[in-house]
C-alpha cells in the first residue's frame, strides 16, 4: 500500500506533543491531583497472610470513631462477573478466521501480551488468561476435561486473600490519618490456608497447593499436579527434571529428528525472576457520583477500552460512567484497562450518596497490587547445525502464575522462539503454577522479554562454539518477508494428521536489515575483537541480540471534526500513558488533509468529550491500529471536504486538493478556495453524513455515541479501520552492547548500547528513540537488578521498597545510548508504521545477558537478575555457577 518513503509533512517529524507544556509546568493533572469539596479518603486493609479465609471482621470500634464514614468489603461488590475462560477468544487461534467486524476487534494479537477488554466480560478483561496467544488457546483446548466449578474472578476486595497484601476491606474517613487509625482498631480473624511461594515446592509430592481448587492452572480452571519423587530428587540436586509431567503441550515438526540432525546441542536450566511493573504513578483513583453518573478520575493506559471494564467492576452501564484520565504516570501493562481497585472509591462514594472519595495507593500497596511479570523456572535444549542453523528447540517452562489465573507468558515465549529462529522442530511444555504472590498480568512484552533473556545467550554460545559470527547466526535463523511461525496443539489421539495445519505469518520482518544497519553503526566487526579481552581487573564483553513482539491490531475507529473556526479537532480514545501515540497517530488525519499541526487540537482522556472506540494501549498495538483507523478517518474527512468543495465550487470531488486549512482545485492552490472553517459551516448546513447526523453502521457503539454527542459541531470525519491485513504484525529490534566486568568484585558497567528497530515508517523520531531506549533499559533492569523477594516461611513480601526491588537508575545504564530504525514500511499499514513499545525490551535484556556471557563465559549466568556476586563467585569457582539454580523469589 505505502511506498518506501512517501513525502510526509508531519509523519516522521519531531514536534512538541500537545501535553508537554502542561507536564513540564506542573499543570498536568494526574488522578491524585484532583480535589473536590467534601472529599473523604479511603485506606485499604491488606491481608497479613499469604492465604487465608476471613472468618470474622469486627469493625465496630473503627466505625464508632467520629469522622469514620464506613467500610467496604468484598460483599459490597456487584455479582461476580463471568468466569475467565468462558468468553470467546478473539483472533489468532490457529486457523481462526479474522474476527467478525464489530465483535471483538482484534484487541489481543496472537502472541501479544495484553488483555483485551471485551464488552460483556469486563472484569475478566484484565485477566491475563484472556490473552489469546495461539499457545494459550490451543493448550487450553487440549487440557484435561472440565473439572469442578469455574474459578471465581479476582475482584478488588476479598474474603479469601490469596497473597500477602491483597486488600480485604477499605475504610473511609475524613482523613487518611483517621482511616489509618480506624484500620488499626479493626479485628479480623483468619483461618489460615496452605500457601505456595516457590512453584517447585507446590509440585513436590505432599507439597502445598496455592488454592483450595488445586495447584496448577489447567483449562478451564485448576487441577492438582504433583511430580514424582524421582523428579524432585533431581531438583534437590539442582537439576530441572525435563521429563516431568506438564500441563501445556505445543509443538511443530519432530524434535527427535531435529536433535538427530544437530551438530551441536546446548542444554540449560534457567531461572528468571518475577518483577513488578512499578509505574511511578500508583493506581490512585478518585470518584464521585452526580446525577446518577459515576465520575472517576483514574490512572489507566487505555481510556476508551477502560470504560467497559470499569463499568463492569462497579456494576453500572457504560453510559453511566464518566472516566477522566488525561495523564497516566506509566503502566507497562499493569493498567491496561485501569485497575480493579478503581471500583473501591466508586462504590464507597455510592455508599456515601456520591460524596467524593479519594483512594491514594502508596508505593508499598502498589508493590502488592500493582501486578507483576511472572518469572520462570525451566529448562531448554537447542540443536544447531554446523553453520548455526537451529534444528530443534525443546523448552519446559514453569511459570510463577500468581493465585488467580494462568498468565501464559511461557507459551508466548515459546511462540516467539518459533518466530525469531524459524525453528522447524520445536516442542514447548509448560505449567502455570498457582503461587500466593501478587498476581501477574501482561508486562511490557509479556513472554517476549523472558524469551530474549532465555534463548539469545544460547544462540550466542552456539555461535561461539561453532565459530560463526553472532550477527550472521541471527541473520541465518531470523525471519524475513511474511515469515511463518507458531506452535500447534497436539491432535486428538487417532486423529488423521492434516496436510497443512495452519500456522501464522507476519506482515513484515526486517530484522536482517536491522542487524546489518546495527552492525555497521556499532562497528561490530572491529568491536567484537575486544570481546573477552581483559585489561587490569576488567573484561570486556561485546554482544548482539534480537527481540520481537507484536506490533499492531486492527479494526478500531477514528473521529474528528473540522470546526467553523477552522480548527481540526481530533478525538482520540487512546490513553495518555506517555508513549505519544496519542498525538503521533492523530497527526495522520492532519497529514491526510494537509492541515498545519498548529491548527489541530487533540481531545483525549475524558469520556464525556466524545471519544471514539480505540485499541487498548498495550501489545504495542496503538501506533499500528490508529494509524490505520485515522488513515481511514482522514480519508473520510478528505473525501467529505472534496465533496463539499465540489458542491460549492463545481467539478468532481477528486478534482480538489487541500493545504493550509483550505481546499482548492488540484494544482491551483492560489486560485479559488474554501477555508476549512467555511467547509465546516457548509457541513453543518448539509447535515447528514457531513456533520455527524449519519454515521457508518459498522462503527463501534462507543464511537456512535461520541459522534452523536458532537453532531452539528462541524464537518465530521469518522471511520472504522476496514483495511485488509494478511498476517499478524510484529516489530523487531537488533540490540548491540558492550559491557565491562570487574572480575574481582563482579561489578559490571554497561558501556554502550545501540538499538536498531524494524518498526516500519518512523512516526516521531524523538518518541521512537525514547521507546527503543526506554524498553532497552527496562530489559537491562530485568537482567541486572529488579526482583521480588518473599520469605518462604511466612509467604510475606520482603522486597517492598524501591531499593529492594531495584529499578535501574540513571547510573546503571550507559551514559549515552544510540538508536536507529531501518525505516522500511510495513506493507499492511497505509502509513507503513508498526508498534515499538514491546519489541524494544526483549533485545535490551537479552543483549546484556549475551555480553556478560561473552565476558565471563557461556553457561555461567543462568538466572536473573545477575547480581555482582553471581559473576564473582562463579569466576572464583572456575566458572561453575554457585547460586541456587532453581529457587524462585530470592
Amino acid at each position, binding site marked *: 500500500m505505502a511506498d518506501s518513503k512517501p513525502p510526509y509533512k508531519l509523519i516522521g517529524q519531531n514536534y512538541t506533543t500537545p501535553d508537554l507544556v502542561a507536564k513540564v509546568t506542573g499543570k498536568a493533572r494526574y488522578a491524585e491531583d484532583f480535589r473536590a469539596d467534601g472529599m473523604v479518603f479511603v485506606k485499604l486493609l491488606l491481608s*497479613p*497472610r499469604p492465604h487465608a479465609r476471613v472468618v470474622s471482621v469486627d469493625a465496630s470500634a473503627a466505625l464508632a470513631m467520629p469522622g469514620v464514614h464506613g467500610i467496604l468489603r468484598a460483599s459490597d461488590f456487584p455479582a461476580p462477573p463471568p468466569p475467565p475462560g468462558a468468553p470467546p477468544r478473539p483472533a489468532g487461534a490457529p486457523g481462526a478466521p479474522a474476527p467478525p467486524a464489530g465483535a471483538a476487534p482484534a484487541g489481543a494479537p496472537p502472541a501479544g501480551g495484553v488483555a483485551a477488554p471485551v464488552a460483556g466480560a469486563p472484569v475478566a478483561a484484565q485477566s491475563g488468561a484472556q490473552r489469546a496467544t495461539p499457545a494459550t488457546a490451543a493448550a487450553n483446548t487440549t487440557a484435561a476435561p472440565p473439572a469442578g466449578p469455574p474459578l471465581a474472578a479476582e475482584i478488588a476486595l476479598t474474603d479469601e486473600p490469596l497473597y500477602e497484601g491483597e486488600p480485604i476491606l477499605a475504610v473511609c474517613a475524613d482523613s487518611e490519618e483517621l482511616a489509618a487509625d480506624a484500620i488499626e482498631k479493626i479485628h*479480623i480473624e*483468619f483461618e*489460615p490456608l496452605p500457601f505456595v511461594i516457590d512453584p517447585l515446592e507446590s509440585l513436590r509430592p505432599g507439597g502445598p497447593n496455592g488454592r483450595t481448587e488445586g495447584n496448577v492452572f489447567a483449562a478451564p480452571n485448576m487441577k492438582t499436579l504433583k511430580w514424582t519423587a524421582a523428579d524432585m530428587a533431581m531438583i534437590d540436586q539442582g537439576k530441572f527434571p525435563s521429563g516431568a509431567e506438564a500441563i501445556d503441550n505445543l509443538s511443530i515438526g519432530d524434535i527427535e529428528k531435529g536433535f538427530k540432525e544437530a551438530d551441536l546441542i546446548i542444554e540449560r536450566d534457567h531461572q528468571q525472576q518475577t518483577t513488578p511493573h512499578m509505574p511511578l504513578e500508583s493506581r490512585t483513583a478518585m470518584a464521585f457520583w452526580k446525577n446518577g453518573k459515576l465520575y472517576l478520575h483514574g490512572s489507566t493506559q487505555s481510556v476508551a477500552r477502560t470504560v467497559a471494564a470499569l463499568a463492569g467492576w462497579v456494576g453500572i452501564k457504560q453510559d453511566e460512567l464518566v472516566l477522566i484520565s488525561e495523564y497516566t504516570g506509566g503502566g507497562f501493562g499493569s493498567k491496561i484497562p485501569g485497575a480493579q481497585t478503581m471500583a473501591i472509591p466508586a462504590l464507597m462514594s455510592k455508599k456515601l450518596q456520591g460524596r467524593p472519595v479519594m483512594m491514594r495507593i502508596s508505593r508499598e500497596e502498589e508493590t502488592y497490587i500493582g501486578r507483576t511479570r511472572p518469572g520462570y523456572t525451566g529448562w531448554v535444549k537447542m540443536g544447531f547445525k554446523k553453520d548455526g542453523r537451529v534444528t530443534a528447540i525443546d523448552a519446559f517452562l514453569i511459570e510463577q502464575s500468581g493465585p488467580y489465573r494462568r498468565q501464559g507468558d511461557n507459551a508466548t515465549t515459546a511462540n516467539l522462539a518459533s518466530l525469531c529462529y524459524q525453528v522447524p522442530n520445536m516442542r514447548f511444555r509448560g505449567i502455570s503454577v498457582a503461587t500466593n504472590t501478587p498476581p501477574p498480568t501482561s508486562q511490557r512484552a509479556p513472554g517476549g522479554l523472558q524469551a530474549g533473556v532465555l534463548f539469545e545467550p544460547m544462540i550466542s554460545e552456539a555461535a561461539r562454539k561453532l565459530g560463526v559470527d553472532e550477527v550472521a547466526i541471527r541473520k541465518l535463523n531470523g525471519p524475513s518477508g511474511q515469515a511463518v511461525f507458531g506452535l500447534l496443539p497436539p491432535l486428538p489421539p487417532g486423529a488423521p494428521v492434516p496436510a497443512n495445519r495452519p500456522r501464522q505469518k507476519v506482515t513484515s520482518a526486517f530484522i536482517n536489515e536491522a542487524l546489518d544497519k546495527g552492525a555497521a553503526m556499532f562497528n561490530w566487526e572491529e568491536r567484537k575483537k575486544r570481546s573477552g579481552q581483559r585489561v587490569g581487573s576488567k573484561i570486556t564483553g561485546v554482544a548482539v541480540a534480537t527481540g520481537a513482539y507484536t506490533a499492531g491490531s486492527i479494526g478500531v475507529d477514528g473521529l474528528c471534526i473540522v470546526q467553523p473556526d477552522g480548527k481540526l479537532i481530533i478525538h482520540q480514545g487512546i490513553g495518555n500513558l506517555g508513549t505519544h501515540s496519542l498525538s503521533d497517530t492523530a497527526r495522520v488525519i492532519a497529514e491526510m488533509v494537509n492541515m498545519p499541526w498548529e491548527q489541530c487540537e487533540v481531545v483525549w482522556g475524558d469520556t464525556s468529550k466524545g471519544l471514539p472506540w480505540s485499541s487498548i494501549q498495550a501489545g504495542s498495538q496503538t501506533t499500528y491500529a490508529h494509524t490505520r483507523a485515522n488513515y481511514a478517518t482522514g480519508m473520510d474527512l478528505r473525501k467529505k471536504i472534496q465533496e463539499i468543495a465540489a458542491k460549492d465550487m463545481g467539478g468532481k470531488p477528486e478534482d480538489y486538493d487541500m493545504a493550509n486549512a483550505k481546499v482548492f482545485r488540484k494544482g491551483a492552490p492560489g486560485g479559488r478556495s474554501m477555508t476549512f472553517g467555511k467547509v465546516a459551516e457548509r457541513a453543518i448546513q448539509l447535515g447528514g453524513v457531513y456533520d455527524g447526523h449519519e454515521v457508518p453502521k459498522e462503527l463501534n457503539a462507543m464511537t456512535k455515541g461520541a459522534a452523536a454527542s458532537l453532531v452539528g459541531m462541524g464537518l465530521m470525519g469518522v471511520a472504522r479501520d476496514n483495511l485488509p491485513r494478511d498476517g499478524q504484525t510484529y516489530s523487531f529490534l537488533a540490540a548491540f552492547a558492550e559491557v565491562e566486568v570487574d572480575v574481582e568484585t563482579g561489578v559490571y558497567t554497561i558501556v554502550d548500547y545501540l538499538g536498531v528497530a524494524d518498526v516500519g515508517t518512523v512516526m516521531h523520531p524523538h518518541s521512537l528513540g525514547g521507546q527503543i531506549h526506554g524498553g532497552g533499559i527496562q530489559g537491562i533492569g530485568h537482567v541486572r537488578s529488579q526482583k521480588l523477594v518473599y*520469605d518462604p*516461611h*511466612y509467604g*510475606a513480601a520482603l522486597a517492598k521498597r524501591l531499593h529492594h526491588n531495584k529499578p535501574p537508575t540513571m547510573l546503571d545504564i550507559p551514559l549515552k545510548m544510540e538508536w536507529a530504525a531501518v525505516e522500511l514500511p510495513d506493507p499492511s499499514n497505509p502509513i507503513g508504521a508498526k508498534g515499538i513499545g514491546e519489541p524494544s525490551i526483549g533485545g535490551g535484556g537479552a543483549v546484556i545477558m549475551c555480553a556478560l556471557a561473552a565476558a565471563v563465559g557461556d553457561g555461567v549466568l543462568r538466572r536473573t537478575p545477575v547480581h555482582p556476586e553471581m559473576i564473582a563467585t562463579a569466576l572464583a569457582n572456575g566458572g561453575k555457577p554457585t547460586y541456587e539454580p532453581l529457587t524462585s523469589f530470592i
Partner: protein
Amino acid sequence: MDFLTWARSPWGDTIATHISWSLFWAALVGGLLFLLGHGGYMLFSQHRRRDPAEVDRMEAEHKGLPAKIERHGIVARMFHWIMAASMLTLLLTAFLPIVGIQFAWVQWHWIAGMLLTVSILFHIVHATFFMDFWSIWVGPKDIPEMKIEMMREMGREDLAGPRPGKYPLGNRLYHLAVVVAGLVVIASGVLMMWRIRNSITVRNPYIMSDLAWSFTYVAHGLMGVGFVGLVIAHIYFALRPEKLWITKAMVFGFITRREYLEFHDPERWAQENKPGPKVA
C-alpha cells in the same frame, strides 16, 4: 502494667515475646523484702531448737552413731555446686544486661544452661537409682509435719510432732519449687537453643509455631525470674547462722552426731547401726 511484652507476628497475630522485665525487678525486690522480713522476724522471735538437754539425752541414747554422719556424698555435692555455679552464671548473664551492665552474654548463658541441663539429667538419674529418692519429696504425709512446723514457728516449741527426716520440710518445699522451675527453664531453654547459633543445634526457629514459642519464652522468663527469688532465698538461708550446719555439710559432706540428733528425727533418717558411710 503488663506482665508480658506483646508483639505482632508477621501474620498480624498478637504474640507474647517475653515476660515484662519489671517482673525481674519484682522478683528481686520481693526476694529482698522476704529476706528483710524473715531476718527481722528471726531477730525478734524465739529460736526454736531442740532443747540442749534433750539433745544430750539423745546423744546418750544413740551410742551407735558415728561422730560424723555423711549428709551429702561427694557426687551429690559436686552436682550441687556445679548446678549452683551454672545457675548463678545463668542468672547473672540473663539479668545483668537488663540492669544495664551490657556484655556479650548469650554464649555464656547457653553454655551454662547446657551445663545445668546435663547436671540435672545426671542428678535425676543419680537420685533415682542411687539415692533415697523419696527423701526429698513432699507429699500428703508431710501435712502433719507442716502443721507442727508452722506452730513451732509461731513459738509453740512445746508441741510434739514429727521432726524432719534427712531434709527439713522447708528444704524439701524449696527443692520442689526448684524442680518445677528448673525443669521448665531447662526444657524451654533447650528449645531455645534452636533459636540461636551454637555448636549443638542447627538453627531453626521454625521447629514450633509462633504461639508455641510465645509460651516457651514466657515460661522461661517466668521461671528465670522465679529463680531470682529462689536463689536469693537459698543463699540467705544458707548463710543464716542457725542453718550454717547444712551449708557446711554441703561443703564438707558430713554433719556431726550432735547436729544429726538436734535437727532430725532418727526414725525418719536412720543412721544407726549402718555399715559405714552410705553411698551418696
